[in-house]
């Protein structure tokens, strides 16, 4: 494996500490081989791509480069160190490249949305509505207040519904451990796979089409269907981490089950429940499909979630993106950027909370 020959025991004096052989060490020669293969395959790819084969586009270039690189690397290592080592090293680099390749689109998305959205984002976005903005107005005139209010109200109500229910379900699964705990867990898993559009259709047929009309509350109900399984599953994992000793200590003091849960288990898992809430919110805050059939969208400010159509960041972005006016499409990116920023903030918050829990 490219390690220097290990000193044999015969040479080492009895009292000297033998140099330890490290089977996975990485030497200058190995690094040179990696870099050499990468560079020469890049050169060959360029030659093939731009001079010989009639190809275009960055994704194809990267794929060809990766394939040639792995082939070259395998041949080079096989020539010097044999096939098993070559297979091992090549697979290690394939896996590393694949893992990095997943991050590339994420960086592209974040960069692209920021670039497109930040161009036309003005402070007035947070204070004005779309009521006075026509399709002809410049993209710097974008009012997002009605969408921000809508998103906050809808997600807030969804949170108020699904967090208590989710925590209680997790308590049932993990503390009460009733007869139906196993099937319930399966159904929670199944529910987490309900397509968002189906949740929207359901609320539409039950509520909106039955005379209640479009409203922010209907949207919140659809969102809570999507949020509930996320909250339940995360909470269940968190409750499982509560040390059993705390539970037994509470029972030993004569506390009934509900007091144990309310006074010992839930406070211990407090931060984890906050994380579960944040994850649930992050799951639904960008949902668009169910809002089309529940909140419907509106250009004016509507504070009342219980009656009348309401807007939302994702919904506005979607509706503007389909417009034929360039200014409207630019506006859509502004909405998308604000939404993405909100999601990122929530995600970082959840991570920080999770870290605090671990410590």
């Amino acid at each position, binding site marked *: 494996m490219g390690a220097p020959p290990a000193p044999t025991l015969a040479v080492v004096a009895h009292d000297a500490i033998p140099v330890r052989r490290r089977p996975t060490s990485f030497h200058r020669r190995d690094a040179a081989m990696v870099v050499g293969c990468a560079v020469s395959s890049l050169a060959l790819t360029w030659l093939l791509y731009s001079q010989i084969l009639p190809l275009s586009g960055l994704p194809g270039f990267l794929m060809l480069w990766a394939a040639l690189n792995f082939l070259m690397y395998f041949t080079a290592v096989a020539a010097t160190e044999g096939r098993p080592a070559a297979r091992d090293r090549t697979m290690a680099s394939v896996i590393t490249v694949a893992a990095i390749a*997943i991050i590339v689109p994420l960086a592209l998305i974040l960069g692209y949305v920021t670039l497109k959205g930040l161009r036309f984002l003005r402070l007035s976005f947070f204070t004005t509505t779309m009521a006075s903005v026509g399709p002809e107005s410049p993209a710097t005139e974008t009012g997002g207040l009605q969408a921000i209010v809508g998103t906050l109200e809808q997600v807030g109500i969804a949170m108020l519904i699904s967090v208590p229910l989710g925590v209680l379900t997790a308590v049932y699964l993990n503390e009460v451990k009733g007869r139906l705990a196993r099937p319930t867990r399966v159904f929670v898993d199944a529910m987490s796979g309900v397509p968002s559009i189906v949740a929207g259709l359901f609320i539409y047929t039950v509520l909106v089409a039955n005379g209640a009309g479009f409203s922010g509350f209907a949207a919140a109900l659809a969102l809570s269907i999507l949020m509930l*399984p996320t909250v339940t599953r995360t909470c269940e994992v968190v409750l499982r981490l509560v040390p059993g000793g705390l539970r037994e200590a509470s029972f030993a003091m004569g506390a009934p089950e509900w007091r144990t849960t309310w006074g010992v288990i839930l406070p211990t898992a407090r931060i984890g429940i906050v994380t579960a809430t944040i994850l649930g919110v992050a799951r639904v805050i960008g949902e668009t499909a169910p809002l089309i059939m529940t909140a419907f969208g509106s250009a004016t400010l509507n504070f009342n979630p219980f009656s009348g159509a309401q807007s939302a960041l994702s919904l506005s972005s979607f509706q503007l993106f389909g417009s034929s006016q360039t200014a409207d499409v630019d506006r859509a990116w502004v909405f998308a950027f604000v939404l*993405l920023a909100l999601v990122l903030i929530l995600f970082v918050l959840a991570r920080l909370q999770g870290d605090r829990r671990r410590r």
Partner: protein
Amino acid sequence: MSTTKERAPAANVPPTPRKVVVVRTPADRMFRRAAACAGGLTLIILVLIGGFLFTKGLPALKDQGLKFFTTQVWNPPPRGNEFGVAALLYWTVVVALIALVIAVPLSVAAALFVTEFAPRRLRRALTSLIDLLAAVPSLIYGMWGAAYLRPRMIGISEWLGRYLGFLPIFKPTTNAPIYGPSAFVAGVVVSLMVVPIVTSVVREVFSQVPPGEKEGALALGGTRWGMIRAVVLPFGRSGIIGGSMLGLGRALGETIAILLIVSPLFAIRANVIEAGAIPVAPLIANNFGESSGLALSALLAAGFVLFVVTLLVNLGAATVIARSRSGAGVEI
């Protein structure tokens, strides 16, 4: 001694275990019932969703009969009276399969990298970044896919059509094929949403591989890749299958991203790289605003079919994963 005296009668008593009688306070009974209700609500909601969609979609199902599952076109009442989910289901499955073909190898590689190769610090960072992929809203994937990725995929689509055209899935159907708003591009974008789901399940299973077996493989002189092939991958197989099915469930229900990328095509066509495709969920989102009466009922019937399909896939995934994991939960 007094202790022996006291012990003596105890020896004669047959060793039956003491009967434990649990007496719960009324408050506790209430508490248990409330928790059970919350748990049962999940089932109730699922049943309600299925029930409502089915009853409201029934008029359309009755109208078309079994043709609903074989008709490819979608022309509900104002335009005609012929509609069915054959093409819709076909494209739903095609887009989901393309997404899985791309996402599963990448996810397994990422999970292997995180559990076997990465240094500790990189491990946390990479896990966070992959989880972040799951947090990005599907709308933003769709907008990015339509505005950024779609034009950049034309080159590779052309290449596939020209040089791998002997395969039915790439075979050009016209002399001047249009690439871009295709099932292929949609599948690539959906694969990005599937990756974090599959990765988190597979990573969880890989991290439960018994270290003794891994060390045994290495001690026998195996390389790291040899150890992975002989120990990690066989151990994690059901995790890979379960994670893929969970990803499949997500891909089948994906709506907005696909809607923004593809141009509709109500026909079954083998070629996946040319323009045109329309899965169930994007069709519902697209036609919802202009539908009423029987047309709306048709959409609800399509929604019901989608609901049943995803439910079955997810139940299957849950069973497979539950069989593979031991105690520890999988957090998504």
